[in-house]
C-alpha cells in the first residue's frame, strides 16, 4: 500500500499534467525515494493510483536505469564508466572499490551498506574520474581519497 504522503505527492505531480498516466515516472521516483527501490507491489499500487495497468508501469520502470527494480543498499555508488573517465583511469578506481567493498558492479555488500553501479558520463569530464553517492557528486577521485569519501556513509 502506498502511504498517504506518497499518494499526496503523486497527486500533486499528476495535477500538473493533462492526464494522470503522464505522472508515472514521477510516481516511481517518489515511491523509490521513500522505499529505496520499486517492488512488484509498488508497481501495482502505482498502477492503481494512476489508472493504468501494472504491465505498463513496469515497462516504464524497467526502461530507466535509475529506477531500481531490485533492492539496493543504504547507499548507492554510481561510478562513471564513460570515455573521459576511462581515459583518466576509472578502472583503477573500480578495482580499488572492488577490493575495499568486496562487490562488483550490480552487487550490494553483505551488510547492505553499499550498492555499486556503473553510470554513463556524469557531466564533469574535466574533473574525471567521477562518482556519485546518494546524489552527492565527487570529482577528481583518486585511490587515496576514496577511503575518506566512503567513511562518510555508514
Amino acid at each position, binding site marked *: 500500500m502506498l502511504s498517504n504522503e506518497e499518494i499526496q505527492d503523486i497527486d500533486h505531480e499528476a495535477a500538473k499534467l493533462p492526464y494522470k498516466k503522464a505522472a508515472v515516472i514521477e510516481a516511481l521516483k517518489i515511491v523509490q525515494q521513500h522505499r529505496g527501490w520499486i517492488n512488484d507491489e509498488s508497481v501495482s499500487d502505482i498502477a492503481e493510483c494512476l489508472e493504468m495497468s501494472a504491465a505498463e508501469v513496469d515497462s516504464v520502470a524497467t526502461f530507466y536505469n535509475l529506477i531500481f527494480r531490485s533492492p539496493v543498499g543504504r547507499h548507492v555508488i554510481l561510478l562513471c564508466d564513460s570515455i573521459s573517465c576511462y581515459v583518466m583511469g576509472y578502472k583503477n578506481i573500480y578495482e580499488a572499490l572492488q577490493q575495499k567493498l568486496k562487490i562488483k558492479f550490480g552487487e550490494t555488500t553483505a551488510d547492505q551498506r553499499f550498492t555499486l553501479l556503473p553510470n554513463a558520463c556524469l557531466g564533469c*569530464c574535466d574533473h574525471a574520474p567521477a562518482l556519485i553517492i546518494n546524489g552527492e557528486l565527487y570529482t577528481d577521485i583518486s585511490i587515496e581519497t576514496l577511503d575518506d569519501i566512503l567513511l562518510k556513509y555508514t
Partner: protein
Amino acid sequence: MERPLTKNIHAGRQPLSLKEYTTTGGYTALQQVLKNNTPQEVQQLVQKSNLKGRGGAGFNTGMKWSFVPMGADAPRPKYLIANADEMEPGTFKDRLLLEGNPHQLLEGMIIAAYAIQANISYIFLRWAYKKAARVLEQSIHEAYEAGWLGQNILGSGFSLNMHLHTGAGRYMCGEETALLNALEGKRATPRAKPPFPQVSGLFGKPTIVNNVETLCCVPHIVNNGAEWFQSLSYSEDSGTKIYGVSGKVNNPGAWELPMGVTMRELIEEHAGGMKKGYRLKGVLPGGASTDFLTEQHLDIKMDFKSVAAAGSRLGTATMVVMDDATCPVGFVHNLQHFFAQESCGWCTPCREGLPWVEKILLTIEKGEGKQEDIELLQMHTQLLGPGNTFCALAPGAMEPLQSAIKYFREDFDRHIREQKCPY
C-alpha cells in the same frame, strides 16, 4: 573579447541570484520584447542572427521557431522545452550555464516562448544534476515572485508557466522526440518525423525543444542585435561557443570563446597542452558521437562548417583528447559499450548491431580478433549509418568507429597480428 554567456559566471561562486542578474542587465531583453516586438519580429531577429542550435545538430534556431503554427487558430497550449539532459559522454557545458547563471536560461526561455506564443514551458534536466536542480527550483520561484513568470507578464497579456522536470536516467531522453515521450511518462523511444514537434509535439501540441546554451544566447541577441551576435564569431557561424577539453591535458575545462577558434588554440592554450609524457593521438571534437580528428587537423576552425569539412562534426564542441598511451581499440570499445547500453531497442539494426560491435571490439582488444573482424566492423558502420535507423543514436555511434578504423588501422591490425593489446 566578449563573453556574453559566462561573463558573470565565476568558478567557485554562488549562482547569480535574481537581484544580481537584474543589476547586471538581466531581464531587460524580456521587457524590451514584451513592450516593443511582435512574436514574429523576435523569430526574425533570431533567424537573422544565424544562431544555430547548440545541442549538436546545428539547425538555425529562428528558422526552427518559424515552423510553429501561429495566429488565433493555432492549436493550444503550445510548449517550449529546454533540453538540459546533457548526457553525451565528454560533454559538460550546459552544467556550467545551469549552475552559474540560471536566470539567463529562464529569460531566454521566456523570450523563446513569447516568440512562438507558448504558454507552458519545461526544463528537462538530467537526474544527475542535483545542484542545478536546486538552483533552478529556486530561480523559477524567484521569477514567479518577481512577475517574470505567471499570468499576464508585465501587463503584456502574455502568460507563461514553467516547470522543472528531472529525468530518471538514459541518454535517449536527450533526443528531442524521445524527450517528449519521457515527459509524457512513457518509455523514451523516439517518434517518427514527420510530424515534427514544431507542429505536433508534447501531448500532440506544437512544441519547440532547444538546448540550454542555445536559449542562453537569446537575451543577448535581443539586447545587442543580430549583427553584433554575428560579429562575435571568427567564422560564418555566429556567436560565441562554450568549448571544452577533457583527457590527459594540463588544464581540462570549459571556456566561452568566439565561434571558430582553432582546435590547436583550445588544446594548447586553454587546456594548457598535453600532460608531460603524453602525446596527442586523436580527438573527438564534439562528444562521443563525432568522428575522430588527428594532429593534422589541429589548425581547423571549430565551427559547424569547418569541422564538417574535415570529416567530423562540431557536435557539442566539448572535445575528448585521446593520448598515445591509451589504446584506440579499448577507447572505441568503451564508446560502443555506452551506445549499446543506451540503445532504446526500438529498431533492429541498432538494438542488435551495437552489442555485436561491442563484442567484436572486446574480442580484438583481448587479442582474440581475426582479420575478418575489421570487415565486420566496417560492414556495421554502413548498416548502422544514416538512414537505416529510427534516430541518430546508431549513426552517431558509428562515427568514432569508422574514423578509428581509418586513422588507427595499424593499432587494430597489431592487436590481431600479435594476438594481444600492445598498450
